[in-house]
Each structure stands twice: as structure tokens, then as C-alpha cells.
């Protein structure tokens, strides 16, 4: 019998208390226990980036974390972007530039881009390409994703 743990975590501004097995992956916890299926699992070994979430404001691969590591943390998933007017601009810009096709890797990109445009460091196309190289997309060839992010940075710089 595996001992279970009680965890408390805030996901997308909502508080959850759950009793879970220690071996439960954060990605499975978010998808199956919280029913937030926008976070996708593409490789379960930390390469593809589809499962990217934010933990206390910093991007993280939810497939490489255990759910117990979310205890006491503030988590943001792709579902949080739509309800935030500022972040919704990321979604709109992705749509405008056709920066998604099948949409499976997209949540991971959106969360990564959200972090990227908050960071003043990234300006040029080259910097953006490097910053996004940890997220794999098999449909778009990345060009339109890069264009969308360049546009988002342009908007950010104007502010």
C-alpha cells in the first residue's frame, strides 16, 4: 500500500486540496485530478515542452515534476491565459499569425511565450528562436510562431 499525501495548491487562482500518491506526475495531476486538460503530455521526458506550466511565475515541465512538488505553490496553466485581458493578446496574436495547426504543442508554447514577453532581455528574432528552442512543434515549422512573438514584443515595447 502506497502512503498518500495531502497537498494544497493554487492553480489558476483556485485553491485545491487533494490527497494523492507521491509518484503521481504533476502533468497527470493537472490533467486527470483537476481536469485541466489544456496542459498536454507529448513525451514525458522533458524534451517536447507541451506540458509546460508556470510554478510561482516560472516555467516548468509538468511531466518532470511530481504533483507533491506543487504543494504550497501557485500554478498557472494555459487555461488561465484566456481570462486575463493582457495575456489574451498572446492567443489573439497566435491566431492572427496562424501560429498553430493541430494545437497540441500550443499550450506549452503559449506559457513559454508568456514568460518570454515578460522578460525584457529578449528582443531579436535570434533571441526568440533560442528562447523557444525547448518547445517542439511538428506542424508549423515555427516561422509563424516566431512572427507572432515578434509582434507581441513590438506591442510590449510600445507600452
Amino acid at each position: 500500500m502506497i502512503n498518500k499525501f495531502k497537498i494544497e495548491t493554487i492553480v489558476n487562482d483556485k485553491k485545491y486540496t487533494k490527497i494523492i500518491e507521491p509518484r503521481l506526475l504533476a502533468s497527470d495531476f493537472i490533467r486527470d485530478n483537476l481536469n485541466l486538460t489544456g496542459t498536454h503530455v507529448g513525451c514525458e521526458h522533458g524534451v517536447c515542452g507541451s506540458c509546460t506550466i508556470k510554478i510561482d511565475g516560472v516555467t516548468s515541465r509538468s511531466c518532470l515534476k511530481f504533483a507533491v512538488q506543487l504543494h504550497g505553490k501557485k500554478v498557472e496553466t494555459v487555461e488561465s491565459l484566456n481570462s486575463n485581458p493582457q495575456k489574451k493578446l498572446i492567443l489573439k496574436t497566435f491566431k492572427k499569425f496562424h501560429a498553430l495547426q493541430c494545437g497540441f504543442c500550443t499550450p506549452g508554447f503559449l506559457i513559454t511565450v508568456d514568460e518570454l514577453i515578460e522578460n525584457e532581455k529578449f528582443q531579436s528574432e535570434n533571441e526568440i528562436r533560442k528562447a523557444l528552442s525547448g518547445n517542439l512543434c511538428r506542424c508549423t515549422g515555427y516561422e509563424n510562431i516566431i512572427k507572432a512573438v515578434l509582434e507581441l514584443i513590438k506591442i510590449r515595447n510600445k507600452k
Partner: protein
Amino acid sequence: MNDESKKYIGKNVLRFEDDRLLSGKGVYTSDLNFPDQLHLCFLRSDTAHGKIRSINKDKAEKLKGIYGIFTHEDFKDVPPIKSPSRMKNYYATNQNILCVDKVRYVGEPIAVIVADNRYIAEDAIELVDVEIENLEPVINVKDSIKSNSAILHNEIKSNTILERTFNKGDIQFKRDEKILSVKNNFSMTRKSPVSMETRSYVCNIDKINDALTLYSSSQVPGVIKDALCQFLKIPGNKLNVVAPDVGGGFGGKASLYPEEIITVLLCQKFKRPIKWISDRFEDLMSTSQGFEEIMEVELFFKSSGEFIGLFGNIFGDVGSYSIYPWTAALEPMQVAGFLQGPYKIDNFNVNVKCVVTNKPPTGPYRGVGRPAAVFAIERLIDIASKKLKIDPAKLRLQNMIDKKDFPYKIGSGIVWDKAGFKNCLKSALKIIKYKKFKKINNKNNKNWIGIGIASYGELTGIGSKISVAPGMPLNTGTETGIIEIDATGSISATFGIASHGQGLETTLAQIIAEMLGAKIEDIKINQGNTSFIKHGTGTYASRSAAIAGSVAIKSSKKLKQQIIKIASHIFETNKKNIHVNEGFIFEKNTNKKISFHELARAVYSDMETLPIKLRKPLIALETYDPIFGATTTATHIAVVEIDSETYKIKIRDYVVSEDCGKVINPMIVDGQVHGGVAQGIGAALYEELRYDESGQLQTATLADYLLPTTCEVPNIKIEHIEKFLPDNLGKFKGMGEGGTIGSVAAIANAVSNAISHLNIEITELPISRDKLYNLIKSGAK
């Protein structure tokens, strides 16, 4: 008033799919959970070739949360998967859904575990003891065809399960001393389609209808439904296959898999929902693979540069089984089929062998055979141009089939027609500013620059006269489209296709909105669901926009006629005076207008406006078959830069000039080109499923099987040539695969060009950095 409805075809309409996919509200198969659901996990062979001596599952079965562990013994009534074909010299293999006595590749399913969740199921796997006696593994295709090789399928008695020779013209010219030739052996290694969503299946019981619903990440729900009904003897009205949002496919989700059958069988057995989601490791070793071809080819030409003959032998490594429904013929035959490309060559003789090995079955992967074929012929042309001292672009133009030659039958029997071969080449040369590259000399440079051209022709949107795979008894050439207006005035349009990233919910709505005169927002496209339509197959072979797009036109036109007839009665006017646009029906000479909603109410609800004979449902059901196919073509030009110290290959510039007929949505077409080229870059430079001599997969994670990232894929300059329109209703040509078809060869030629001062030719792909290093160090030619 203008007679025409608002134009949507050719416009960059933003996708209707995007809002749900961007907000995390897309529904992929793995997102589905049903009460009482059980999970599956497969125990797979760790041996490439062997005899199963025993399976001991006693310990595992006692684990809490395990509902059963099943082997072939438990599914004795289920026949093996056998992929039929009308081809001569073809032997279908027997693929049991779980291994019976023999294992034939690492990753082949031996047993299935049913558990409360995947975690417990994986615990149980560790406790099952499988004893396998090793047989000689057959890994290499050239070993497999030897007479003393171990045999994979004893009932077939040979590892060559299909052989065919394509012949045209004669070989007498070879005796002429003035004839020159270049000959080389080219090879492509195995690739995995790697859709970001792994294969996933959930089967649920539809209690209301006493039926089963299989939710599948499939590209071909129609094919899967018909196959499952046949294999499992389920009446068609008791099984529905639904492909919800699907996270890419690229061919890997276009075949029938044992796991799919077992998910349905266990749902029947347990009378509970059953879920199986592949992990990436399983996906890399059990989803159909592609591109592994050896091509020994020779191109003959006169000293003037005129091509006169193309000869060769193709060896296709098809893996352990002939995949359903495409058969093992699919890829190797297409290599021969498209080897000649868009060039005039009178004499053609190519032999193809499809050979089994102890590796996973091969199946469709974006481009199917053509990336390999184009790699071989386009490399040969570049090598010939060196021998002839004729510029490679000039040599291509000299031999390219001209529009006055159409229709032109190439050596394999494929007919090219209405395609801008030369237009694409000329356009690409112009965009890349080809002339400035002629002066490049890399000898004393730190960075070596190279330019590579590849032109190709492909057959897309093919009708019933041409099989997607030779001899396959499956109708992939027709498509049915049903367009209905309901009592609220909403429009539903239903097709047998299954979109998995192509944006067909948008492009088909564009066509219908324009052809019917409807508001695009009022149209809902239904697809990927076999309960909607009685015969459909799915989305593959660059068919959906071309064929479903054409049937959308046919059905729209028919429904519009019905609308006009009813409106002319309501307005008491001649049909000629009716105009339909943006969801309204106008009487041209007055200011009278009614909406689709008002028209629908007159038809369905109010019993006064219309006579009974006009109160028929607003529905049009049409089927369309283009009979033959449309010739799509493109020229790709790549410019690469190789660091002579690190051997890092960077793509500096990339151009695609392509002719896909009438463009429905340029933004989506460009997106398909971008993605296709990215996969070609992967195939040319990075991706390789490496199997060692014992048949173990050495690249079973995405840290080992390398996909191109944002840093490897350049921006691409795209030009559309819309001058040569095909015969189908919409004048559309398929273009989903073309990006991959042209890019592999263009990059190989560019890399060869960059190292031409070293007198080395690239003959094997991918040309990774370490391979390039070894090639240069060994001075191999």
C-alpha cells in the same frame, strides 16, 4: 446588384479551430475520461526476432488494481490483420493483434494489462515473466534478401513479399558509346512521423444505442470503422469511430493498429470504458515508420545534356508486416513511381523489392516514397551536371517536361498534366537570385556556402481510377458531402475527412460560404465522425482540400438551386432574379430580402408560405470522384552554410515556388509548406531511427531522435503559381505533403554543393554533423 456572392476562396480567413485550441479547450482523445474507465498498458517484446517459450503472469495478476492480463490465448477468435492487394507477386503477412508464437520486432505487443490506472498497469508489467528464445535477427534489407537469411514469415517462405519491375522504352541505347551516365547508390534511413500527440484510443459503451464508440487519434476513422467491423464482426450501426481534435498525424495515424482493435475488444469484454494512451517511447517503436529505402540508380544522357534513360533497383525495408490498409507496396512502389520526376526520359527500367525485416512495420509518412525518389533523381542530376559541366538549373530546364508536352506519361505509368514545372523552377531561381551563387568558391573559406535545387511532381487529390497504394481494394478516391440547413437557418456541412491540423473546418467553410452565399460564421463543418456519413475514409495522401473541397462545391450548388427555387416562389419572381449572399436571399429588382432563417422557417415550420412540394428538407448530398489525380509541383532551393571547423550545417535561405492550383487559404497553404519543409529538414539533417544489429532501437526518446527546433528551421520564401488548374471541380491540387517531398533533396544538393571542392557527394541521409565529419575525414567519395 452584383450577382456574385462574397468571395472567400483565396482569402486569409482566420481559423475557426483556433479559439478552442488556444484556450486549452480543444478535446483530444487523451482528454476524454468516462466514469468506471479502465486503462490499458501493453507488454512489448524486447527481442527483435524470437520464439515465445512462456508467459508467466501469476504474480502480476495478484496485484491490487489489476483486472486482467491477456495474451493471444484470450483472443483466439480474432483473425490476424491481413492487408489484401490485387498486385501480382504480393504476399500479405499475418499480423496477430498479440504475438502468437513468434515476436518480429522490438516493441511488438505480447500481452495487454487492464488496470485501474496506467501507474498500476506499469507496475504489473514488471511482474510478468516472458521467456523468448532468440532467433537470428534480420535487420538489414540486403541481408534479408539473401537466400540463407532467417525467414520472418514461415508461411511465405521468402522475405521479399513483393517485387515489380517498371518498364518503358528499351535498353538498346546503352550500347552507344556516345552515351554518358552517372550512377550512385542512395539511401534514406528510417524516420518516425512523430506527431506531438501520441496514438490514443478510448472506447466507450453508448448505452442508449447499445453500441460502441471508439474515440481515436486516427487520421482515417472511416477506414478504421470499416476494418473493425470486419475483423470483429460488429454491424456498422453498432460501432462509431470518432476522431476528435487530433494532434497531428503525418501518416503515422493513418493505419489500423493492434492496440486499436484490443481497446474495442476489451470494452466489449468488460462492458466498461477502456482507455489507452501511448507514451512517447511506445510511439517511437510501434507507430508506423517510413522512408527506409536503398536506391541504386543510373541516369543516362547525351553529351548535349539530354536525358535518355533512368535505370535502377529499389530496395524497400518495409519492416515486419505489410501494414493495413496500405500494404508494404505503399512506399517502395512510390519511390519507383515518382523517380523520373518532371523530366522527359524515354527509357525507364526500375525494379522494386519490398523486403521484410525485424523492425516495426512501415506505413505512410508525409511524402511517402517521394522524398526518397526526389533525393535520388535530383542528386543524380546534380552529379550529371558536374560531369557535363552544365549548370544544374540549366540542365533541369533543358530536360523538364514543357506545357506543350502535356499530358505526359512517365516511365512508371503516371501521367503529368496541367502543372507549372518550368514556371516553379524559374520563379524559385529568380527569388533566390541564383546568378550570384555561381561565383562562390569555398576552397579558402571558413564557412562553406552551398546552394541546392530540387524540383518534383506529385499526384494529389486522386480519384477512384488510381489507388493511393497499388492494388489496394479500398475506395479512397471519392468523397461525400452533405450540406443541410436546419429550422433555425444554421448550416451543417458533413464530410468523411478527418482534419488533424490542416484547418479543414475553416477552408471547407470558406468554399461553402462562397458557393452557397452563406455567412461563414453560420457554417459548422462536421468531420472525423463515422456516424455522420455512411462511407468515408479520412485525411491522408493530400486529398482532403482537393476532393472534399470539390464535393463541397457540388453540394453547395445543389442546395443553392433549392434555395433559389423556394425564394422565387416566396418573392413571386423568376429564379433569375434571385441573388444569395452572406446568409440573405434577395430579389434583385425590388428591395425584398429574407434570411436563411426565414427561408428555413417557411420550409420547416410555418405551413402557409409554401406549397407542400416545396417543403422538402433543405439538404444536398453529393458524392464526388475526380477519377484521376491532379499534378502538383514545386521547386525548392536551399542555401546552406557549413562551418568548416564544427561541421554545423545552417540553412541560410530557403525558397519554395509551388503550384497547387487554386489556393483556398494562402495562410493555411503557407503553413503547410512551412511544416512540410521542417520535416524535410529533419529527414535530411537530423532524424534517424537507429536500430543496432540485434534490432534494438537506439533512438527511443526525443533526446535521441532529434526533431528540428526553432533554431534549425529558417524562414521560407513562398511563391504560388496559380496558372495551371486541374480538372476537378474546385481546381484545387493537394499540397499537404509537398514541403517534405522537395526539401530533403534540396538540402542534400546544397550540402553536396558546399563541399564540392572536397569532391564528396552526399548519398545517405540524414547527413548529421558527425556523419559529415566522418565522410570528410575519410575522404570517401
